[in-house]
């Protein structure tokens, strides 16, 4: 049994690979959002900070809003771009 090569032809792997790439995309976006707000707005002198809901603006956007944005983003990505596949070993035809 030639596992490795037959495994690559498994149609489910194409889906899995696509979804892993989406994961990388999401984490890059997450990082840029986090970094840009934290060091873009937070790099100033604390006396010049502006505040949102009592928190320094850099912190609010980078951390609080960042978490909310990611939660929403993950929700939509999973809902619209992720595909159900079967885990049954023998027959794995995608209906």
């Amino acid at each position, binding site marked *: 049994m030639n596992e490795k090569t037959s495994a690559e032809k498994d149609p489910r792997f194409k889906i899995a690979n696509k979804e892993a790439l989406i994961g990388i995309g*999401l*984490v890059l976006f*997450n990082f840029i959002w986090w970094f840009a707000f934290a060091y873009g707005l937070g790099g100033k002198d604390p006396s010049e900070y502006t505040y949102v809901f009592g928190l320094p603006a850099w912190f609010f956007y980078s951390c609080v809003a960042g978490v909310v944005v990611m939660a929403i983003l993950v929700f939509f990505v999973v809902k619209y771009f992720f595909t159900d596949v079967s885990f049954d070993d023998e027959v794995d035809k995608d209906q």
Partner: protein
Amino acid sequence: MNWDAAITLFGSVALIFFIGLTASRKEAVSKSFVQDYYLGSRSLGGFVLAMTMTATYGSASSFIGGPGVAYNEGLGWVLLSVTQVATGYFTLMILGKKFAIVTRKYKATTLIDFLKERYQSKLVVLLSAVSIVVFLFSAMAAQWIGGGRLIESLTGLSYTSALFIFVVTVLIYVTFGGFRAVTLTDAIQGSIMFIGTLVLLIAVIIAGGGISEIMADLQAENPNLITPFGSDGTLTAPYVSSYWILVGVGVVALPQIAVRAMSYKNTRSFHLALMIGTIVVGVIMLNMHLIGVFARPILPGIEVGDRVMPLVALEVLPPWLAGVVLAAPLAAIMSTVDSLLLIVSSTIVKDVYINYIKPEASRKKVQRMSMGITALLGILVFLMAVNPPDLIIWLNLFAIGGLEAAFIWPIVMGLYWEKGNKYGAIASMLVGIISYILFQSFYPEPFEMHAVVTSILLALLAYVGFSLSMKQEPLKH
């Protein structure tokens, strides 16, 4: 001794365990003891999967050590900690369906099973087993200490007796319950953590006179506390960013997380877990560390960072409620510990004993061995934890980085790169572990970043280099 708090704390914990055990009894006997004890027969639903990931990862480092450091460093440490939100979605997406499909094909129940089938090499198995046992052992000690400290601060018992109570509870539970009981209680514990941190955060904000007030107090004490750079300005952007690797992306390689990514029932549970997990991890990490920062103006001058959480809870909440809320971090620690125990014990029993020593061992024998080893390990760690260092977070992060450096490429490249072979895997593990230990000991921040970043890069070079230059002989058929 604070009786109200102690009673509700232990009451909540007992209740959680009771539910876990009863629920796991329901579906007790299935075909294979090993599949069931270590993997819960791959039957996790979405909610349970999300919560068990969260609870396993959200360990003493986030719940006791983390808020303690945030107390000293200010908002910069919260910024660092929210990098963990990535674990909520990234881990599952990367391992994702591929890992679930492949491990089912291989009939793998542990991370090492997967590596064994993928690379067909005894050396890979032994190297993995050794690194899991060594690194997770130190991670467990850190968790034990966190649990002991928490009970100590809350009840006023001596550290050793607190530790003893903690260890006995965990051991009884894990030894008899196995994976399914553990994941079920993880789900309850995850929910308590979620609600508990929320309650505590709100109480702390009220006690501090509102967020604006707290921020003003912090700024008056030391303006650095509200910048991203830490109390003395030493948290640089590259250093904090490197935590994206250490506690975010790299978590893919932790065996206790990876095993969960193969244990879910179907892709529907998987999708649900992604959505729930991201919210839950994000909210818990944010709340927990904010509590640490906000506690500073309320309770200034706490010396041992690990005691910030319990002390502030007792300060701002009525004692009985403090007990219930602190069941959250205690639960977190327990669920981390119990999964670590299971991983280490499965490594010894399944990956070494059954694979190489006695493949034909009877179900009964394996069962007795599994429980015995699990219990024995717990006792050993207890002995290590009796005389512990103060800030458990460093101990824990050391272990986490080591495992990541060892496993990240053998797992990820093993899944996605066909040309990867056993030479690559062995080289990558050796380079990762050795370089990590050397960096940590002699040059902890190469390029101003956490050592794990450089080690992981070196490990990648080793993996690719050796895989390409040394061809593996064709697999036996």
